[in-house]
């Protein structure tokens, strides 16, 4: 049964923020499944090369020029939102991965990699999107939570 869903927009102003989407479970369940997606993943802006080059120049030692080949190896740049799950304010886990569409689950005895097995008890839960990279003006993100 679907217990929560949201379609939201993440903007450049949200960069370096943890965006919390709380929901309440009214009863205990065996398993919680969380699906999320965001788009676009790849940043296609005309300033991609310049942005990457600036990052290289900040990190490289003085007098060492980053090569075009090394910079282009990092293109296209990517937007990156990671997903965490909280129960009663405590972290259940984080999926720090790069795929923009993913599904995770938790139950008392098992959980997707990155998450700790956790009893799916009634109460306050939250999905948290952490905005590691937002290059486009806005990203569209969806979250769906099912309890069974």
């Amino acid at each position, binding site marked *: 049964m679907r217990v929560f869903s949201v379609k939201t927009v993440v903007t450049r102003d949200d960069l370096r923020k943890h965006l919390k989407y709380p929901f309440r479970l009214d009863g205990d369940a065996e398993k919680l499944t969380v699906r999320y997606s965001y788009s676009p993943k790849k940043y296609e802006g005309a300033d991609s090369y310049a942005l990457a080059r600036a*990052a290289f120049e*900040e990190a490289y030692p003085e007098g060492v020029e980053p090569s075009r080949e090394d910079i282009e190896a*990092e293109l296209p*740049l990517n937007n990156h939102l990671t997903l965490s799950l909280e129960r009663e304010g405590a*972290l259940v*886990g*984080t999926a*720090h991965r790069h795929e923009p569409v993913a599904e995770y689950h938790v139950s008392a005895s098992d959980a997707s990699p990155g998450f700790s097995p956790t009893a799916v008890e009634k109460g306050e839960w939250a999905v948290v999107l952490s905005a*590691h*990279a937002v290059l486009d003006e806005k990203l569209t993100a969806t979250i769906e939570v099912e309890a069974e």
Partner: protein
Amino acid sequence: MNDAVYYPFELHCHTLHSDGAFTPRELVKAAAERGLRGIALTDHNTATGNAEALRAGEEFGIVVIPGTEWTTFYGHITVLGGRSDIDWRSVTPANAADKTARAVALGDVAVLAHPYRVGYPVCTGGRSEFPEEIFDALTGYEVFSGLLSDPTNLRAREEYLGLTAAGKKLSALYGRDWHGPGSNNGYGVTMLGISGTLNAENALEAIRRGRTAVADGCGNTIIITPWQA
């Protein structure tokens, strides 16, 4: 008297519990096949792979240090030992030194990862933005990261030598930031000077005591921690 024996370790590794390609068992197997005597598992912002890695360590006969990598927006810190349980999202530039000191007080070892890696938007937090106070709280510093020839390692080395010359008790460490199968050419290892039994606790103690060095793949020493406790 220093009765330490030096063993090669890889202290910065990822699995599919974050964005790596290895399962924890595959990682440990690959480390053993490479001739390493130990690893630290440092998945991004999770410790859920540690149990499998520890079992694999027993299976393949190498030391596994449980850990995680705080992969914050502002810099990355590997936390080795598995004793602290600090929510990575709570770590900010303003409190990073306190959070790190807390992890160390609980028995973990905290290492600044790839301090000068190319940062945002290529790798968020790749280049450390943590304030100087962090160096009083950390245990170690990745003087070399990834490919030994990466130019950003020159800046890390320069900073490390300055910090230790100023009296900061930071161990010189290497971090491959190992994410999956591939050639081992061009990467290094951390040599840990271990007293007594080769195990995780004595490996952590080697880092705390400055009994560390970074070596290339042939075993040639590149840098040694310039102090020992």
